[in-house]
């Protein structure tokens, strides 16, 4: 007699930041949400910008239905220290200035790509809890 596998499956997709950086803001959000709505947990080696994160929440809310209650997101940013922190702040400011100029010319935000870090995005139906610390996070998933 063949024993039935009593474990249900979880699909995890590991996505490179390079792959997401190739997509525009809206396409990036659509890509993430279509994967998550299909039941995948995404792990990306990068961190979305704050405005992309809030767009992700907004778009998630538009897609919530009986079978898809939403998402769980957790990210870890690279914590720069000392001179690196100073240069990061400088680089952030310079990005903002570049963005203002670019918007002025093209009317669109500049596509600068993901920041260094790690992001996990998954369906709230599967991810039951996320515990976050400044340098780590743990995820409890249930199928």
């Amino acid at each position, binding site marked *: 007699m063949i024993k039935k596998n009593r474990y249900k499956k979880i699909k995890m997709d590991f996505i490179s930041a390079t792959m997401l950086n190739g997509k525009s803001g809206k396409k990036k959000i659509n890509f993430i949400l279509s994967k998550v709505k299909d039941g995948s947990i995404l792990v990306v080696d990068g961190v979305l910008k704050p405005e992309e994160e809030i767009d992700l*929440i907004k778009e998630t809310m538009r897609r919530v239905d*009986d079978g898809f209650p*939403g998402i769980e997101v957790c*990210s870890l940013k690279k914590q720069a220290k000392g001179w690196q922190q100073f240069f990061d702040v400088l680089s952030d400011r310079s990005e903002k200035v570049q963005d203002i100029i670019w918007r002025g010319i093209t009317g669109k935000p500049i596509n600068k790509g993901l920041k260094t870090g790690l992001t996990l995005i998954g369906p709230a139906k599967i991810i039951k809890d996320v515990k*976050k610390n400044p340098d780590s996070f743990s995820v409890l998933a249930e199928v």
Partner: protein
Amino acid sequence: MVFNGFFNWFVNLFRVRKDIRLGIYGCTNVGKTTLANRIAKDFTGEEIGRTSKIPHETRFVQKKEKVLIKSNGKKLSINLLDMPGLETKIDYRKFLKFGIKKKAAKQRAREATQGVVEAIKWLNHVDTVLAVMDSTKDPLTQVNITLLGNLEAKGIPVILVANKMDLKKANPEHIKEAFPQYPTVPISALKGQNIDELYKAIIKHARKAG
């Protein structure tokens, strides 16, 4: 010189000064409407909205205009905006546990998702934000991090409100440690504890509009 001074005085005489749009943001059930009610009642005598233990009681932006905050002899006129709670997930089944019928629960969930979208849209129109957090809970949630990241990117002044300080489990220090770069005021919106410190902070940190 004298002419310039007179000219500026004359222009200021007719200049319409906009009131500061003070947005109250945070996750669900952290006490945003309780705080909005406290502020509105202290300075206008009227409450702004209904509170409930069931999440997403506030599903539409609630406004109270021309609220004149006074503290230490200083005054500030604000338009108070109580926002629906921000969440990354809304499941109608959660409302069933509170005795709400399925049809009403689904309607509540639908309105709540629209409320989150509306609250996010308002981020482009607020001048200052009170980011309310529950002192009894872990403040390092992705919603809090995303909210603060966006406000920082937009250059909007933020005051962290460590609410529910009257509860035994409360640890406002945890919020200060998690987000040391922001002014943090521990309060109890329900009991009014330390509320004057919050009014002082609003007058001090609020960005002038108009």
